[in-house]
């Protein structure tokens, strides 16, 4: 069941700018979070059948 790509055998990659240091996997996840948030706001949502004035 295991596929070839075992990340733990790779040397971890870290990016550093001064006092900021982040691992590449974490950066990808954070980037994906922000990207998905923005996409969720801007992508059109399928909105079709409407029932108007539905009084409960």
């Amino acid at each position: 069941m295991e596929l070839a790509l075992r990340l733990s055998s790779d040397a971890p990659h870290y990016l550093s700018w001064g006092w900021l240091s982040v691992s590449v996997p974490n950066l990808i996840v954070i980037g994906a979070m922000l990207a998905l948030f923005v996409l969720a706001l801007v992508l059109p949502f399928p909105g079709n059948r409407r029932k108007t004035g539905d009084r409960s």
Partner: protein
Amino acid sequence: MSTTTARHESAPAAPPTTWIGHLRGLLERKLPYEKLLPETQPSYVASWIYVFGVATLGALGVIVASGAVLAFEGPAWYHISHTGLFFNSLHFWSVQLFFFFMVIHLFGKFWMAAWRGNRAKTWITGTLAFVVSVGAALTGYVVQTNFDSQWIAFEAKDGLNATGVGSWFNVANLGQNLLIHVFLLPAIIAVLVAIHVLLVRVHGVVPPIDAAKVEAPPVPTVPEREGVR
């Protein structure tokens, strides 16, 4: 002519006098089935941002299912079994997705000011669920029985000890943390999440911040003329 007295099933019920009666009355008022399981939503519930709550719930389901398998096989199984490692991976990635979706959900709810309209308890139960989930993650990390567990236990003990909590919550105690991680915290999270979701059903999805302006009846622009367009 029938002498049977017709039974009126729709006759008004006597007010409840029992605890169970009061409880039923409360549920019927606050959360009738139509509110619990509606077929419609307000038309403003039309954005992809709304799927992240249910995505978080879905991830929680996968966490519990994969965790149940790991619990059944014991904490050392995944070190020696390829199937075990796969289930550990399912658990690891579903946790990543859980926090991923939860953060986006929290972010979205903040920008929608979703606590409006008596919905503060929904916000509070949600943020509490996040905090308890962080605790569940900590106990999960320290029961991995590998180097990461050793490191995290060694580091986390200082903060916990500094607050006095370390006196009874000992991250280096595998037995204690296994039980807390597998039973206690999931139970607390389940209760918080259930209340959180039910509160959303009780109060409904929060209306837009400018909904009153949109729903207000149109004001006539020239009131003194007979408005024929």
